């Protein structure tokens, strides 16, 4: 490695290198042998596994997944039990202590338990809703992206209309109209997320369709279904994966907000982070912050965790 003379470096004002050139030279990797797709994927995965965002995200996600499956393992009290101390006295609205690690709420329930048990509802509904939305949205997006035509036009108008009202408002209206049952809630979220997913998939499909290999396939007499599924789809999988993770974050977000607004699909007493925040936030001014803040932090951590994973996957697939 040749030594770079100091005075050469001195002339270069790092990091204001913009004056001196583009960010990085694009090395035209003509015939780069040894970079099989598997190796590229492996390197992407390795990069992913090393990125701090991904690791933290997975830890958080892992913690909450565990909580949703085996909450009993992590807790002492049940989510609806009345907390009593060693002498049998009911602990009402006490701050965090040895008996109740996150304190107790206005019904003397263990906030910690409610937080742990509260993971399940959101970790079931969010993935289910996301999955439904992704499947339908991807199919719709690929269809409109490839065939275009009047179906595309009409759908695009409808999609745009749907996106012009804040998702939350639409969700509120729909859930209220049809009743706040878990099925309705999941269905509403799924329905509302189809639009942005379809839009992204459509754009990706559209740009792939312009490439020559698609024309070559048509020239072979391939059927459209074949082209969409076997030729185009493998090339947009990355986009779909990123969408799944990003939408999952949004799903958690929206579900928590709906729960906060009273639309949780369950009983008022069931442990649910959003519901708990809604029921207890007015006590913050009175100094009783713990029944609100811990569930709020739980929501926050989960959303951040999912988004960190989504972000790191997106960045890894870009390289």
């Amino acid at each position, binding site marked *: 490695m040749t030594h770079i003379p100091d005075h050469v470096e001195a002339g270069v004002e790092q990091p*204001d290198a913009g004056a001196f050139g583009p960010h990085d030279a694009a090395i035209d990797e003509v015939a780069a042998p040894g970079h099989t797709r598997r190796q590229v994927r492996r390197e992407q995965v390795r990069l992913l596994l090393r990125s701090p965002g991904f690791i933290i995200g997975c830890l958080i996600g892992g913690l909450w997944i565990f909580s949703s499956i085996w909450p009993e393992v992590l807790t002492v009290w049940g989510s609806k039990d009345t907390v009593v101390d060693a002498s049998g006295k009911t602990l009402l609205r006490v701050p965090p202590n040895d008996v109740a690690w996150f304190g107790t709420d206005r019904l003397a329930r263990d906030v910690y338990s409610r937080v742990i048990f509260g993971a399940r509802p959101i970790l079931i509904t969010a993935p289910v809703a996301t999955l439904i939305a992704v499947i339908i949205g991807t199919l719709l997006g690929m269809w409109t992206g490839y065939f275009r035509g009047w179906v595309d036009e009409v759908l695009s108008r409808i999609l745009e209309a749907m*996106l012009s009202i*804040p998702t939350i408002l639409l969700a509120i209206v729909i859930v209220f109209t049809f009743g706040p049952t878990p099925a309705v809630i999941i269905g509403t979220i799924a329905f509302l997320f189809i639009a942005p997913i379809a839009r992204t998939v459509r754009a990706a499909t559209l740009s792939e369709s312009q490439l020559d290999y698609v024309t070559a396939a048509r020239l072979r007499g391939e059927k459209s279904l074949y082209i969409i599924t076997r030729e185009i789809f493998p090339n947009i999988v990355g986009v779909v994966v990123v969408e799944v993770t990003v939408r999952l*974050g949004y799903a958690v977000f929206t579900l928590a907000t709906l729960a*906060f607004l009273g639309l949780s699909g369950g009983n008022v007493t069931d442990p649910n982070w959003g519901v708990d925040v809604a029921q207890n936030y007015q006590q913050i001014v009175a100094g009783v912050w713990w029944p609100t*803040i811990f569930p709020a932090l739980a929501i926050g951590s989960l959303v951040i965790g999912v988004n960190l994973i989504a972000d790191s996957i997106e960045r890894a697939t870009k390289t």
Partner: protein
Amino acid sequence: MTRFIVRRLLLSLVTLGIILVLITLIPNLAPGDPARKIAGGTASPERLMAVRESLGLDKSILEQLRDTATAVFTFDFGESFTRPGFSVSELVLSALGNSARLVAFALVLVLPISILGGVVAARRRDTWLDRTIVNTGVALSSLPEFVVGVLFLALLAVPIEFFKVIADPPDGASVLVQMQFLMLPALTVLVVYFGYIARITRASTIENLSADYTRTAYMKGLSTQQVFRKHVLRNALVPTVAVIGTQLGYMFGGMVGLELIYNFPGLGRLIFDAVDAADYPLLRGGVLTVAIIYMVATLAADLMIAWMNPRARLALSEAA
């Protein structure tokens, strides 16, 4: 250019039309009898009939559509059910005014900080500063606004006198006092939107910094500052403007959680209460107002983009 504006307006009207249809259909689609829900289980048949009439449910769908359309263009949605004596327009406009004040204040905070953050991150790309800005942004933007609101309540409002818990300034208060009351909600909006806007700005700035025309500018002998100011910024901010345009509608009607936490009488809260109480006229008026705001905001954003980027005028007029 005029053709472009006309086309955009027509498209907006189509969107409005679709929403109109949806809004009209809602009470018709609701399972059970919405009239009964409002009137109560023990209402008399006359009462039920009266409620149904005021909902428009006695008419055919087409007539209902026509009524809703008229209502939009005259901005008269009748009286609110839950607050009789007040017309929907009154209530909506009042809430709109409040939301407008909050949004204006929030933008004053959000825009400079987010854009600056994005630009700095772009120019100091891949340094710790860049990574911090991006990761902080991502993390904060993922939080639902009520979570942020609750945290602010606990951390700022309760211990610090300056921050008001209820974001409802007294009538006739000075601008500064109003700002004080709106400080927490505005900060919440900042936290929620910072990451998103900063990231878009960052990405666009990076793209423009490595563009060929930027290279030409450097080769002319311009300094980095000059290149940035004269050439890069006006192109780099285009996506940011677009995003702000689309997000404006959200800021007006989508911050329900925030408005509840801070007891802020804004548009989102109004709509939520309307839904809660099955106050359909109010609901109608509120949702359509939000839709109109979104359309106006995106149209304004598109116009601004066309002004900033002449080639976009070509693209927009052809795409529209």
